[in-house]
């Protein structure tokens, strides 16, 4: 392999497996592929160690020992998933996460010890975890290219054959030819100010769709998090001990209700305030010590969040703590496009968590499990097909923002497109509560953004990255709202006040595909009503 530092011009290297994305799923995929004997390159838009939704914060893991207790835990959660989770997939996720978390402990990750002196493996501290994963990845012999956003996949007519992008700190293009690619690019935050959003623009969805993959469960993209206004701290745990009030001090009752929906409805009327006044002195101390990032917004402006009330908002978490993503075909996290695999939040998590958020423990365990499955499977694919793949010429597969569809105009305003996505995807009365009329309105504008992207001249360098991020955000939004329109019922986080209640006929995943024309299909093969 070539040392990239010695290459002055465009970087062009070959490997067996390319992993795109350096959050936990990508890191685990890279380690698994290297352990299986592959040469591996990992590229990240930012930095392996800080990129993604996991690095900034503490995260639980879904960590349940094998046996009766695990079967009971799965059965207990199943009805809440809107019937869309698959107990077999939940079981195998828990199984792999259980094994790999024990590996982490054996390899020296500093888990705290409980009162019996046993390491407590059901929690990871984000900054420390991802710092540790970086060392693990490098130790496995993986070449890590930070600040190398992927802009597009490469194909050879038969299989996916690598990816291309830009080295944004040296302003030069790169191309990695690979016999197999794992997309671990995370979810899409629709441009919201949440932790991890800098890298979470849905790039992997766009690249996968351009290669012919399907998206699944994109209507489950309406997860929102309580956040102290105007910070980016979308962390739920302290809110377990919060009470909510309106401007005039009247309490917002959340007793026995969907707390997010109750606060969302109040926020549509006016400002809402929160206070962590339900926490005992003991809990307060543990919160401060265990969730220190959650207290920065208060400590830095001199507010005591336990005894004073402060403005709270709901920030959209899109498919990050939502569910939708690239449809997985089989147990190997294959996408159906030969040589292309998906892991973590880039993949649909419906089989794990159905219509409700897997935020926190389930998604964290999913990243570990799916990363391992995808990494290993990509290594096997590369071993089988690598020699043949290396002989075939490659073509780049990127379209919107890179290659115009028709006679192109100059002057694409990527910022205006991102602004439009934010205006359509973040408001509570558009995405949290969805209605046919607003969905159609938003789609009309988003389709216009897409036409703009398709009709403009390509940019290069940093502008190309901005154009591709705008394209990924727009494509993801269009899949999300077309799916939301097609699912004419309410289920889990998909709230349709104009279609209240679940409809038994919709106990089925929806697949979205296509870019210029978005198509919807039911996973069970039954016909969908026309939705465009």
């Amino acid at each position, binding site marked *: 392999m070539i040392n990239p530092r010695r290459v002055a011009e465009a970087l062009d290297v070959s490997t067996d497996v390319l992993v795109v994305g350096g959050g936990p799923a990508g890191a685990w995929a890279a380690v698994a592929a290297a352990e299986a004997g592959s040469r591996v390159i990992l590229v990240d838009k930012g930095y392996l160690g800080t990129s993604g939704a996991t690095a900034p914060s503490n995260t639980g893991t879904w960590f349940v020992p094998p046996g009766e207790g695990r079967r009971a835990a799965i059965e207990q959660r199943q009805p809440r998933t809107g019937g869309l989770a698959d107990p077999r997939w939940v079981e195998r996720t828990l199984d792999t996460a259980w094994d790999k978390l024990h590996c982490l402990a054996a390899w020296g990750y500093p888990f705290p010890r409980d009162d019996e002196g046993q390491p407590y493996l059901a929690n990871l501290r984000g900054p420390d975890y991802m710092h540790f994963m970086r060392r693990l990845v490098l130790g496995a012999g993986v070449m890590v290219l930070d600040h190398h956003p992927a802009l597009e996949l490469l194909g050879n007519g038969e299989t996916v054959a690598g990816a291309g992008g830009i080295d944004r700190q040296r302003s030069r293009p790169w191309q990695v030819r690979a016999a197999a690619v794992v997309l671990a690019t995370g979810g899409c935050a629709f441009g919201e100010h949440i932790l991890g959003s800098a890298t979470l623009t849905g790039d992997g969805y766009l690249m996968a769709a351009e290669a012919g993959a399907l998206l699944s469960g994109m209507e489950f993209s309406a997860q929102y998090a309580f956040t102290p206004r105007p910070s980016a701290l979308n962390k739920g745990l302290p809110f377990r001990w919060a009470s909510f009030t309106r401007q005039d001090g009247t309490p917002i009752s959340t007793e026995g209700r969907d707390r997010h929906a109750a606060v969302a409805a109040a926020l549509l009327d006016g400002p809402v305030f929160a206070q962590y006044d339900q926490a005992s002195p003991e809990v307060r101390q543990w919160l401060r010590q265990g969730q*220190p990032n959650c207290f920065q917004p208060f400590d830095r402006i001199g507010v005591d969040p336990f005894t004073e009330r402060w403005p709270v908002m709901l920030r959209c978490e899109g498919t990050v703590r939502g569910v939708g993503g690239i449809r997985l075909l089989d147990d190997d996290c294959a996408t159906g496009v030969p040589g292309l695999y998906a892991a973590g939040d880039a993949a649909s998590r419906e089989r794990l968590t159905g219509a409700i958020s897997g935020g926190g423990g389930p998604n964290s365990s999913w990243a570990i499990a799916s990363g391992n499955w995808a990494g290993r499977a990509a290594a096997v694919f590369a071993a089988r097909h690598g020699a043949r793949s290396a002989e075939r010429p490659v073509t780049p597969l990127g379209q919107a923002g890179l290659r115009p569809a028709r006679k192109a105009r100059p002057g694409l305003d990527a910022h205006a497109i991102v602004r439009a996505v934010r205006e359509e995807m973040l408001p509570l009365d558009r995405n949290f509560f969805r209605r046919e009329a607003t969905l159609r309105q938003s789609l009309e504008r988003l389709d216009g953004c897409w036409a703009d992207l398709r009709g403009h001249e390509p940019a290069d360098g940093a502008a190309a990255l901005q154009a591709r991020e705008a394209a990924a955000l727009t494509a993801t939004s269009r899949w999300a709202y077309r799916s939301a329109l097609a699912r004419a019922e309410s289920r889990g986080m998909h709230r349709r006040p104009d279609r209240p209640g679940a409809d038994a006929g919709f106990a089925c995943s929806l697949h979205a595909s296509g870019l210029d024309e978005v198509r919807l299909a039911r996973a069970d093969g039954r016909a969908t009503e026309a939705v465009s």
Partner: protein
Amino acid sequence: MIEIVSARRCIACDVCVKVCPANVFDAIPAAAPAIARQADCQTCFLCEIYCPSDALYVAPDAEGVSGVSEAAIEAAGLFGSYARALGWRRGRPDGAQNDPTFRLRVAAQ
């Protein structure tokens, strides 16, 4: 978002340029890095804990610039405060072994 790179504290190691997931900083030869793309900051505070000399300050407002002064942050003892709360020292991880969050997860149930 990121608001202060203290030239007085900075040792020009450029670690922040490397670790910022949003590529907010630009390296300047033999000087403190510049905040080149402030609006791209995701307000995650991670640059602060990787900084070996506690030279960075991220204001908690994710949507706008608050305009705090270096003197005020120095006087309030806020440089390096998040790293100290985690137990990270000189840009190196430490303290996860003392994390009491498992007690919260039990208490939350």
